[in-house]
């Protein structure tokens, strides 16, 4: 295993380097093939490692690569930790990345920066896998920063558009704020445990006092809110839709945004030490899920709806983490990766067929023109809405069941969010695929065309996965479920009060009822309507005025402070001091330069007077 595991991260790196070095001499087709191929190989390696791990009794293998940092008591190896959690992440990250790479070769065809796109994409996959497989926080941080950086590049891929450039900056800065949290958590943990490897930290949890544990958990939560787009750092994600659609699918649905959840799950033994910290996580997750869902109801841009639905779904995952249902969180993460990638790629197919139009008001009736995209998207819609027996029903049900066991209020919030989810997804579906054809203006009276096979094939695969994803973790398959497979990784699983089958069935019925309510409401309202001021509240459309609030509380005061320091501190204090020093030197120089009159005889006189002084001194001393 130690020989295969490094290949998982080496392949994307090799692809990145190949394209980086030979980029100009390779044709676009070859670049696409290399980039897709290396990620595919990475997926194959993951499968091999997974199979090997299944035969490994310890279920926990550390693969040493080399010693990276060794200073005094700080020892950071470059090593991989292969355990059920990391390999599960690897499997779905590489699997979905392969599909998205394949899709991108067609979607990005004809782009002028085609090679650069795959360069970034490969580097992103490498970073993500480093993040997932690292056996210590520092190496994880490297991947953490790597995905943030690639995200910045990919969001501002169309950097000649102002909106894309500023969206990239926004994503990067929000991520940086979260990074501070991760750094703080690392500092605190090293201060108290003197190690940064996961296993080292977990084996010395006794050294961490409850107060410190709460601080660490809150810091990790800050990191997760940044990377996984949770309140209060969630509003970079919708703006990140400025990037090409495959990027939205890859980064902002399937992989990168799950990094925060992954980190929380990875640090579950620390989370176990602080119940108040877990409570904060649960509240953040639940509130984010609800707020983002309300916002998604009022968006007009198809990708914005999906973006907020992503935020909302990740809110569910964080909520699950908060109540200690790590298995449910990972289960939702995986099924979400399937159906959200499917939805994004499907929306990309729609956008592609309409020549780049993203406004749902200018779509409609697309079902007729997209014979492959339509049914797959239909499956995606049903899955995310939570219609049984698709994956979304099982994973969301899993989360909600666990939440119900711990906190009824959050459960109610979760069910409300489920209603909203079904509602806004149905609205999106109807506006896009049903109703009258409103796209003629956009397409200049041409008929929309279905996307090529390399784009639709991933859709079909993802649709199949969305349908079957529920099999991963069926509630009654205890011995063979995902949760069972993952459970050795979780240092602590909050005890779930044993729920009777009746209760579980009842909760599932509530979930179904929520879905039905959402679907029914959406059909009633949107069957014949394109715009509705009643149901598209400006408050929701403008993201609860979140950006405005930041602007008022942070942006403008900071800008004012910057102006003050520029106009007053810089000009009148720093510059004045600097120029004062310079000026005084210059003025004294002006005075002193008169001594250098160029008059030889004056210099001679100075010498004579110098001799006089010496002689006077000698006379004085002789006395």
């Amino acid at each position, binding site marked *: 295993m130690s020989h295969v595991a490094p290949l998982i991260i080496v392949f994307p790196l090799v692809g990145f380097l190949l394209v980086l070095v030979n980029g100009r001499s390779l044709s676009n087709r070859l670049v696409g093939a290399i980039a897709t191929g290396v990620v595919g190989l990475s997926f194959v390696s993951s499968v091999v490692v997974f199979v090997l791990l299944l035969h490994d009794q310890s279920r926990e293998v550390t693969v040493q690569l080399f010693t990276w940092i060794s200073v005094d008591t700080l020892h950071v190896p470059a090593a991989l930790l292969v355990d059920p959690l990391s390999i599960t992440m690897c499997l779905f990250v590489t699997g979905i990345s392969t599909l998205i790479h394949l899709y991108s070769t067609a979607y990005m065809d004809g782009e002028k920066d085609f090679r650069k796109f795959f360069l970034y994409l490969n580097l992103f996959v490498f970073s993500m896998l480093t993040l997932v497989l690292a056996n210590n926080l520092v190496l994880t941080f490297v991947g953490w920063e790597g995905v943030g950086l690639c995200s910045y590049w990919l969001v501002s891929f169309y950097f000649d558009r102002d909106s894309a450039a500023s969206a990239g900056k926004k994503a990067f800065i929000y991520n940086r704020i979260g990074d501070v949290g991760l750094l703080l958590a690392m500092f605190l943990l090293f201060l108290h445990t003197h190690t940064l490897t996961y296993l080292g930290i977990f084996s010395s949890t006794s050294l961490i006092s409850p107060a410190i544990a709460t601080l660490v958990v809150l810091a990790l939560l800050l990191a997760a809110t940044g990377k996984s787009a949770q309140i209060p750092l969630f509003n970079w994600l919708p703006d990140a839709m400025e990037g090409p659609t495959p990027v939205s699918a890859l980064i902002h649905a399937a992989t990168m945004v799950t990094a925060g959840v992954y980190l929380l799950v990875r640090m579950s033994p620390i989370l176990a030490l602080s119940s108040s910290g877990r409570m904060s996580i649960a509240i953040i997750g639940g509130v984010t899920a609800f707020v983002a869902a309300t916002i998604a109801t009022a968006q007009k841009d198809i990708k914005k709806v999906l973006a907020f639905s992503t935020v909302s779904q990740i809110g569910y995952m964080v909520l699950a983490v908060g109540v200690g249902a790590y298995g449910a969180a990972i289960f939702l993460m995986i099924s979400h990766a399937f159906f959200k990638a499917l939805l994004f790629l499907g929306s990309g197919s729609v956008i592609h067929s309409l020549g780049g139009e993203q406004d749902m008001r200018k779509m409609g009736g697309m079902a007729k023109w997209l014979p492959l995209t339509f049914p797959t998207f239909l499956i995606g819609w049903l899955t995310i809405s939570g219609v049984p027996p698709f994956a979304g029903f099982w994973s969301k049900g899993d989360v909600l069941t666990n939440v119900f066991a711990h906190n009824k209020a959050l459960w109610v919030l979760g069910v409300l969010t489920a209603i909203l989810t079904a509602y806004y997804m149905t609205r999106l579906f109807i506006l896009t695929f049903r109703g009258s054809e409103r796209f003629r203006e956009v397409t200049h009276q041409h008929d929309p065309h279905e996307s090529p096979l390399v784009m639709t094939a991933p859709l079909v695969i993802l649709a199949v996965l969305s349908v079957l994803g529920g099999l991963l973790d069926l509630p009654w398959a205890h011995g063979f479920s995902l949760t069972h497979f993952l459970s050795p990784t979780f240092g602590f699983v909050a005890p779930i009060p044993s729920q009777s089958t009746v209760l579980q069935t009842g909760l599932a019925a509530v979930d179904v009822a929520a879905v039905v309510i959402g679907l029914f409401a959406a059909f009633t309202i949107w069957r014949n309507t394109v715009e509705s001021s009643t149901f598209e509240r400006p408050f929701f459309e403008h993201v609860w005025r979140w950006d405005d609030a930041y602007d008022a509380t942070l942006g403008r005061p900071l800008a004012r402070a910057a102006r003050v320091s520029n106009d007053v501190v810089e000009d009148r204090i720093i510059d004045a001091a600097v120029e004062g020093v310079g000026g005084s030197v210059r003025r004294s120089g002006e005075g002193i330069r008169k001594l*250098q*009159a*160029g008059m*030889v*005889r004056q210099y001679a006189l100075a010498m004579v007077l110098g001799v006089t002084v010496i002689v006077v001194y000698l006379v004085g001393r002789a006395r």
Partner: protein
Amino acid sequence: MTIPAAWYLILAALLFGVGAFGVVTRRSALIMFMCIELMLNAVNLTFVTFARTMSDIGGQTTVFFVMVVAAAEVTVGLGIVVAVFRRRASTSVDELSELQG
């Protein structure tokens, strides 16, 4: 009894003073050079006086070297004066003030 050393030393001091005053007050480069010669001779006189007083031939040897150096100095100095005069048509050092600050 011979003339005491102090007399010669006082004489040399006076000569030095006159030379120094000349260097500082006269503007002609030529006269300044002559005044420098006066000062050098004052020093020479001191050396010779001490050589006699101390019964050491080293003092006279030094005077010998001072003469050689003075000769070299005058040679180069007058060369410079000639070269400057070609450009300026003047031997006044006051006009050579390009290097003022």
